């Protein structure tokens, strides 16, 4: 990794940040080292994009290959086929888990973000005993291993009838969803200028009115960001999903994919898994493309400023 050499061109980047630096010809043909540095940054950019895209392209390619071509080792399929997609949407092994994944993730996100918004506002703005404990406790909970609680949950859920149900997954998802949302939202609330609430309070608003009428509208982008990040985490969960479900009743896509059986008994389910992977990945990629800036802000806000 040639970090040292590439650093040579860094000032160029900072100084000459302009939209689309393709027309470099209009620049005084002065120093070659700058151009060289710039080329290195461009190469770096291309490397990163290739790095991020490669496995996705490979699995996309597999998903379009007919069963006979799965082993041909080519990145570009020889023949494009939508058979795998047709299979997963007709076999029922995928559709129900997809519905479960969407439903469970959305409900978890909604509950977590609403509950966390109240707590985060209190932490960022109000004085009350125990708020430091709440914030560090949330961080500790976010870090603890999910395998630590699947045993008890497995036992309790079977007794009280939550095993293999939506609430049976939504509750344990709160263990990571709530801390994540609290941290992200606290960071966002702290960025909202305090003067605004002061003004509202001077005008005679109660703290709750200040929260609802002044803070909430300003915090909406932050709340939205927290929701996206929490949703991605719920969407990603695997351990809870395979431990606390046994049928299509609540099994989510990651768990279902791991237990896929081929619709035909003679081939392995590679193509179907690949198609399922693309179906659950494309919406996330679109979301990431659209909300890139917010996600970056949300991911780093809590960690660095705290």
């Amino acid at each position, binding site marked *: 990794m040639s970090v*040292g050499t590439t650093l040579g061109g860094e000032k160029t980047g900072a100084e000459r940040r302009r939209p689309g630096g393709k027309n470099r010809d209009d620049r005084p043909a002065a120093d070659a080292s700058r151009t060289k540095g710039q080329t290195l940054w461009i190469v770096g950019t291309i490397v990163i994009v290739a790095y991020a895209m490669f*496995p996705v392209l490979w699995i996309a390619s597999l998903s379009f290959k007919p069963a006979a071509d799965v082993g041909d080792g080519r990145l570009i399929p020889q023949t494009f086929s939508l058979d795998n997609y047709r299979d997963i949407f007709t076999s029922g092994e995928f559709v129900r888990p997809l519905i479960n994944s969407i439903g469970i993730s959305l409900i978890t996100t909604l509950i977590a973000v609403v509950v966390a918004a109240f707590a985060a506002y209190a932490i960022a703005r*109000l004085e009350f005993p125990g708020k430091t404990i709440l914030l560090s406790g949330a961080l500790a909970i976010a870090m603890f291993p999910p*395998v*630590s609680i699947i045993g008890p949950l497995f036992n309790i859920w079977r007794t009280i009838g939550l095993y293999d149900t939506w609430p049976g997954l939504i509750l344990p998802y709160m263990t990571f969803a*709530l801390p994540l949302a609290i941290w992200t939202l606290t960071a966002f609330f702290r960025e909202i200028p305090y003067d605004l609430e*002061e003004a509202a309070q001077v005008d005679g608003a109660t703290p709750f009115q200040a929260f609802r009428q002044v803070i909430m509208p300003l915090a909406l982008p932050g709340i939205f960001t927290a929701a996206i990040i929490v949703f991605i985490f719920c969407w990603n969960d*695997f351990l809870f999903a395979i431990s606390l479900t046994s049928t299509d009743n609540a099994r989510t896509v990651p768990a279902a994919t791991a237990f896929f059986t081929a619709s035909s008994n003679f081939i392995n389910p*590679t193509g179907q898994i690949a198609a399922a992977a693309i179906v659950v990945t494309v919406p996330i990629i679109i979301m990431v493309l659209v909300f890139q800036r917010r996600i970056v802000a949300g991911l780093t806000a809590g960690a660095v400023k705290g």
Partner: protein
Amino acid sequence: MATTTPGRARPTQPGPDGGNGKGKPAMTDRARAERALGLKLAAPAAIIMLLVTAYPILYAFYLSLFRYDLRTPEMNEFVGLSNYALILTSGVWWQSVLATTIITVVSVALELVIGLAFALVMHRAIFGRRTVRTSILIPYGIITVIAAFAFRFAVSPDTGFLPGDLNPLGNSIGSFATIIITEVWKTTPFMSLLLLAGLATVPEEMQEAAKVDGATAWQRLWKVTLPNMKAAILVALLFRTLDAFRIFDTVFVQTAGANNTQTISGVGYNTLVSRVNLGLGSAVSMLLFLMIILIAFLFVKGFKTNLGTVKGK
């Protein structure tokens, strides 16, 4: 970093900076209302977190003291710490500790180096900044299980592109390499975004001054950039180490623990869910829990000393 509170004086402590009107010695009606509201707003989150984590953790500890096997419920009995003794003397356990440690150390180290390189590119890139930041988020958004399948398919002889009969997942070194590459691919973006945020806090004037003094780019990286982003590096390392140490998904999909790659979470899952031995499995998960706490404790300690020296200068 976890324990900072906003820089406002507490209502009960009279402070010189009582500019917000909050620094009065006696608790005013306003402060009392604020306190009540704060507790009310925070209560639901606190209660839910206690309910879904503290209670199961305590219950797991309780179960870990019993012989508690769902296949032989009539034989369940209190056995004290003997589950722990059984685990700590078992080869499977230590093998999983070794595998987890190898995966954690190697992947976090690689992520730090690659993540730093990516952060530098993102910090300085002029062309395609948006493209690069967006594409780096793709691995982050992809389900871990899917990423694990993508790499498994890519290296398997029957679905991949490797030449000949090369089958990395058929041997131990290849299996570890595949798992680590998958982990690195999936989580480096998170690391690099944290590092990028740290890079943004390094004062540009210091870079300039070092440049004027004739420091090479390499010297500037080591003497100016990295020392100034120590906090960001430590936070990123802490988050990623704790996360990597509980690795489960990738191993489950790629090797299912074969070739000595079984991790601690994997052993816990097998004991708890596949063999429904809740007593023994709970002891495994308690041990993992303690190890995570220990790692976090060591990091926070290192963190404090480091920040202390930085501030002391």
